[in-house]
């Protein structure tokens, strides 16, 4: 079946609609003007300099990277172990466990955020990076579990049996056979966990306080005062950063599919 011109035109318009705002942000970030005007009178790196010259922006960036890194470590270890265990659980137990583990994908963000705020404020975890890491891990773990489970579904259990019959201990079989074969799934899960934490805003709105202002939180605060093109520069950097990570994930997926 061929695509007819009206359908192609409509599709192109929708794709334009999808891409336009992002193209706009990138363009504005290179503007030389003080205000948001479009098209920009001239191009320059003024707002990138403003970003790099601001201790607050940089502090938030480092905090977000650190929180995301810690989240990745926790979510990947806990999530990978859980995915390995889930496949071996009796069906009924597995369904119940998976429901809890995957529920952050479904429960509305605001409900999760205020619930965590409610408990963490009593535990003194407001304004602390530790609180953010604990919360972000819960939000990121579903991505690790689904990704690792998907690669385990493609994994032939007979390979583990073969390793055992050839003299490998249970741990040896896991380390030498299972882990290398599910590694792409683990890495993709880790990447998604990173992006989840790095982009997360709603929980950060409640948990950041004044002591742990993440990058999205600082962007939010700035947006409420004035639309300053520094945010466009920061946004552009996060878009590029995310795209690079996803490019990595894509390459890994291709390797898994092989």
């Amino acid at each position, binding site marked *: 079946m061929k695509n007819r011109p009206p359908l192609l035109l409509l599709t192109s318009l929708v794709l334009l609609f999808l891409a336009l705002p992002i193209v706009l942000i990138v363009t504005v970030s290179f503007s030389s003007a003080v205000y948001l005007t479009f098209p920009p009178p001239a191009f320059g790196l003024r707002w990138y300099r403003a970003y790099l010259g601001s201790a607050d922006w940089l502090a938030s960036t480092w905090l977000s990277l650190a929180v995301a890194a810690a989240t990745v470590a926790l979510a990947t270890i806990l999530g990978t172990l859980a995915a390995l265990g889930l496949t071996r659980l009796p069906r009924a137990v597995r369904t119940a466990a998976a429901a809890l583990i995957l529920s952050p994908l479904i429960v509305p963000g605001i409900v999760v955020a205020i619930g965590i705020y409610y408990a963490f404020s009593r535990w003194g975890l407001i304004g602390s990076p530790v609180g953010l890491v604990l919360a972000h891990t819960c939000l990121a773990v579903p991505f690790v579990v689904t990704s690792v489970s998907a690669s385990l579904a493609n994994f032939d259990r007979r390979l583990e049996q073969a390793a055992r*019959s050839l003299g490998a201990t249970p741990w040896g079989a896991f380390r030498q056979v299972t882990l290398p074969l599910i590694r792409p799934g683990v890495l993709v899960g880790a990447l998604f966990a990173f992006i989840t934490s790095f982009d997360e805003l709603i929980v950060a709105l409640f948990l950041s306080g004044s002591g742990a202002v993440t990058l999205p939180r600082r962007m939010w605060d700035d947006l409420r005062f004035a639309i300053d093109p520094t945010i466009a520069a920061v946004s552009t950097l996060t878009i590029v950063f995310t795209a690079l990570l996803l490019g990595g994930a894509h390459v890994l997926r291709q390797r898994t599919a092989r």
Partner: protein
Amino acid sequence: MDGGLAPLAAARVGRGASVSLVDLEKRFEGVGAVRGISLEVASGEFLTLLGPSGSGKTTTLMMIAGFETPSGGDIAIDRQSVVGVPPHRRNIGMVFQNYALFPHLTVAENIAFPLKQRGVDRATRAARVVEALQLVRLPGYEARYPRQLSGGQQQRVALARAIVFQPRLLLMDEPLGALDKQLRESLQLEMRRLHADLGITFVYVTHDQEEALTMSDRIAVVNEGRIAQLGRPEELYDRPCDRFVASFLGESNFLTGTVRGMEAGVVVADCAGAVLRAVAPQGLAVGSAVTLSTRPERMRFDGVSGAAEGNRLRTTVTEAVFAGERCRYLLRAEDGTMLVLKEPSSATTRRRAVGEVAEITWPVADTVVV
């Protein structure tokens, strides 16, 4: 060879392990998959577990390998019970269905895997890999990855990997199932050669009766979790003990009738409107119902060269099919029993036409009670 490692292919008597299964049972959620299998596999024997899918043959193999825990009974290797010994300490070679080669390792790394688990040093590993690949006639393939090999080559690598650590027992689960007919036949011969060279015990699982007949020293026909019959291939083929074995192992004609009398190890029965005789190991009561079984290729049309006297039956040809090396006839006896007759094809024998009435004969020795 130095270091206490003998060459792989050095046939020695008693090199293989003996295997004893005693009343072995396996239930899955209460349903019996294996329901009391007792079996003695002698040292150096090539024994095949033959049965339809779901008969329990693979479960039995998995219990010997240690991947399934018996629900009852015992497994002994060299008279030592191995129940409770984890698979990696059983020192049993195993070739899996679809081979289970490690896709992230090269051929050499795959074959060296069991040696590495046993702490064999790098140089010895490399030497043994070369030797194992020569033994399966695949030299020079060390650096390939499994996905770069054909099915037959993967099969050989799996075999090399399973024998490189000199196990005394090799288990194989439908190892030729995924290959085409020609390749299967050549690998069958090679498997026999390897068995002779290595002198170790083989336990082989298949649902392919031809494969079982070609390769095995003995065959255990497994049905519904039990051994239906155990014996040498020709014993099973010529003297099937029941209707299941007779029809699962090759093709058989069944004739039902009533016992008329006994004559020195031979039963005389009224079947299909004639008096027929069959070998009967034990006496049968006069008047009791009996089923006789004969192979289609042991029957001949009367008067043709090679036709033997013995049993004789009047039939009508209802279908005639030329199938290359033989002609296959479908015949109807006077009481309506349908029979198959296979005649070696030859330009000199006359083809029977559909509707033709023909007398057929076959030896009493080729007729058994099932």
